[in-house]
């Protein structure tokens, strides 16, 4: 099997303090926080952010150009019928001749995408994303979380680095009602947890035994055990029964970010890779409509290819200022009065297709005569007026500085007010865009900013994906 060449996770900026739920509803809640995707994020945009972190971890190697396949997994795709992976493919600027497909609808798709990419003979990328909640006051609302993780596998002979080898794999599949949701329903339904606990136990035993046998290991030789899955009670039992050393049991981070369902195995694996030493063994068990086990062995290359944004740092950087009412409105459980403004213009297909490099990839132009950058790309240079002498210049990963800004309280936005900034990119180029993940007292002239892929708004059933700026925060 191929090795892991790069990885990265994305934990959205916002946290909901669980105590705020009880504060509003008088019941429920609990301790700790859960991660919350912004109102301008969906599973596709989360996937792009995780993918960017993973590609950046391949510093030096042309991972972007090497990727031949992209598998996108989520339980809540932004579109049905239309492939969501194509927007991710475009935003990550993957090769035009690479395959990009969805594996969506079920939580189990996450580990499915991971295994499919891992088994690919050519370099392949799996991106797992989820945005999860439940009805107000529910356990799902409290315990779940939002996030994404991306993994790039080297395939055979690609020349990409190998940070971890996959040494064993086991699977058990079973048809039973544990968790289900009708398409379009606001919340999942689950059977009694004790039922799932009883069904998952034997399935996990089979998968783990097969994987460890392939790897030639006993449970005691496992350095890091991750048990992921929305059935928390079953997962806890399997951790206890796994027979690994107590210090091998990893923190599943649910106290701080909750359980991101489809993406959880990826986030937890990235978290362990962030700190695992060379030559260590990781056992990943995923519970979802069966059990899947994966054994990885880290290499010496891991230490020099870790992403710039470790999971722990992203967790620490989160903001707990989010009000419960705001959370409810972001997830569609609380309809707020919109401004007395026209509905936003829907995206038109032909212009979006013509400008896909810019819209999704943030690829601007640079005049080959005078060097001036233009955002969006120009045909006529605004400095030297040369016509059609432009080269493409990708700016998504170039930092910028806020030249000026305003707070727009009248504009249509799903979460007023709108922060608008004029950004000057390092090395030249200016654009006006919205600022995400920021509060009024943070916005200032001179603020350092970086680009982030967002869903600006949805109009006429069309999601408008484009880039925003966000404050540069210490996440490394």
């Amino acid at each position, binding site marked *: 099997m191929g090795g892991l060449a790069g990885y990265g996770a994305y934990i959205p900026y916002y946290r909901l303090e669980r105590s705020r739920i009880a504060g509003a509803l008088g019941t429920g809640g609990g301790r700790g926080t859960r991660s919350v995707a912004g109102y301008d994020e969906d599973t596709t945009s989360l996937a792009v952010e995780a993918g960017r972190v993973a590609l950046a971890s391949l510093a030096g190697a042309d991972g972007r150009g090497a990727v031949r396949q992209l598998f996108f997994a989520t339980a809540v795709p932004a579109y049905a019928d239309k492939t969501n992976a194509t927007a991710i493919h475009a935003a990550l600027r993957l090769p035009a001749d690479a395959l990009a497909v969805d594996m969506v609808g079920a939580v189990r798709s996450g580990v499915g995408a991971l295994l499919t990419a891992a088994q690919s003979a050519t370099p392949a990328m799996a991106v797992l994303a989820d945005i999860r909640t439940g009805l107000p006051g529910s356990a799902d609302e409290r315990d779940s979380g939002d996030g994404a993780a991306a993994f790039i596998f080297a395939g055979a002979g690609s020349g990409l680095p190998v940070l971890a080898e996959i040494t064993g794999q086991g699977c058990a599949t079973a048809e039973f009602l544990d968790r289900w949701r009708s398409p379009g329903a606001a919340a999942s339904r689950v059977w009694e947890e004790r039922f799932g606990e009883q069904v998952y136990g034997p399935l996990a035993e089979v998968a783990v035994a097969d994987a460890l046998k392939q790897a030639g290991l006993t449970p005691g030789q496992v350095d890091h055990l991750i048990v992921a899955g929305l059935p928390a009670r079953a997962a806890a039992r399997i951790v206890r029964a796994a027979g690994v050393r107590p210090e091998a049991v990893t923190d599943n981070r649910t106290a701080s970010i909750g359980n991101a369902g489809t993406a959880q195995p990826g986030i937890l694996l990235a978290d362990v890779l962030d700190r695992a030493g060379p030559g260590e063994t990781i056992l990943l068990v995923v519970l979802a409509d069966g059990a899947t086990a994966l054994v990885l062995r880290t290499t010496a290359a891991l230490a020099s290819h870790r992403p710039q944004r470790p999971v722990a740092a992203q967790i620490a950087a989160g903001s707990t200022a989010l009000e419960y009412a705001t959370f409810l409105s972001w997830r569609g459980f609380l309809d707020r009065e919109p*401004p*007395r*403004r*026209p509905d*936003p*213009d*829907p*995206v*038109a297909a*032909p*212009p*979006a297709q*013509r*400008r896909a490099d*810019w*819209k999704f990839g943030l690829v601007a132009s640079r005049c080959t005569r005078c060097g*001036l950058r*233009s*955002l*969006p790309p*120009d045909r006529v240079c*605004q*400095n030297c007026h040369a016509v059609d002498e432009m080269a493409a210049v990708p700016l998504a990963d170039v930092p910028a500085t806020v*030249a*000026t*800004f*305003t*707070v*727009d*309280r*009248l*504009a249509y936005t799903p979460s007023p007010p*709108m922060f*608008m900034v*004029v950004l*000057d990119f390092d090395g*030249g*180029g*200016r*654009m*006006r*865009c*919205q600022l995400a993940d920021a509060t009024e007292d943070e916005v200032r*002239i001179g603020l350092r900013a970086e680009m982030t892929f967002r869903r*600006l*708004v949805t109009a006429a059933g069309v999601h*408008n994906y*484009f880039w925003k700026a966000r404050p540069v925060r210490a996440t490394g």
Partner: protein
Amino acid sequence: MGSHGIRDQVAIVGMGCTAFGEHWGKSTDDLLVESATAAAASAGVGLAEIDAFWLGTMGSGVSGLTLSKPLRLPYKPVTRLENMCATGSESLRNACYAVASGAYDVAMAIGVEKLKDSGYSGLAGSNPPGAGDDGKGDTTAPANFSLLAPAYAAKYGVDPAEMKDVLTRIAWKNHQNGAKNPRAQFRKEVPKETIKNSPLVAGMLGIFDCSGVSDGSAAAIVVRAADAPRYTGKPLYVKALSLVAGPASGLSSPDYDFTTFPEVAASARDAYQQAGIRDPRAELALAEVHDCFTPTELVLMEDLGFAERGQGWKDVLSGCFDAGGDLPVNPDGGLKAFGHPIGASGLRMMFEAWLQLRGEAPAERALRTVADGRSLALTHNLGGGPGECVSFVSVVGTHRGA
């Protein structure tokens, strides 16, 4: 190559202007009929004697039929045009050129906007289908113009609280002027404290820093200068007409610092050259400028050469641009208090020049500068926003060949 202007070749010999406001009971047609018949009557002509029409409206209708139908014009040339908020001035500019060319003897420029049928706050534009990737349609006009205030304050070392006082003074002054004007949308003086503490709309701009959203129409009759005395004893001779569209590079070029409209400076230079004006602040009797938002008026004082760079805010605070000041700016209340029905605003500005220079403003609004013998007025109309806009400047005067 060269911009030569048509100084003193044409004259305005009649004008009409509706009251501006929330005209729930009046349609676009009603407003057009009202201003067109008033302008024609003012020139002493019937509509049938007008040879050609230029109708400016941003969104209240398309094609010449928007005017020819309500007026039942019999097979006349009617052009409908649009140049954002400079639309009304653009209709005047085109009518003037048509007469100067000799193509027509009598032309009408007319502007109209019916904003209050939309049900929205502010402007509701309609953009061509797009990719949603250029920031267009994201932010509102007050947000775009609000960028001027912090940039100006930072560049010239004005304390933010003092900057708020400067903006407040501009709104206060224009409301003072509008309060005396029966055609204005807002006819009440507003205390500075009310202006200053009004709910924020964007950046440091409150509701009272924004122009009035209103319905209205205004019209002018243009003839050759030589023919003007046949229509009125007091024609307004057109000294300069300048319109520029910028390269729209302010939002894409880091060189732009949001403390000026280069388009305004360019159109002012061109207009002053056409009119032979050297010191606008001393030569003009009044200026009607595009005060869509209070920081716009501040920056315009410098771009139009009424104040030195970085000094405009002091001149505002000292009352230089008050109705009784060195150079009265927006003595009719401006966009702020008179209201801003887009396509009509440029011609509404000209209407104030028409009243003031001809001594027809009521006594309580009459300007000392006119009594002192100044005979020139400037109108300035702007469309777009900081970084990308179109700008129009005209100069008119009561003396031909002066």
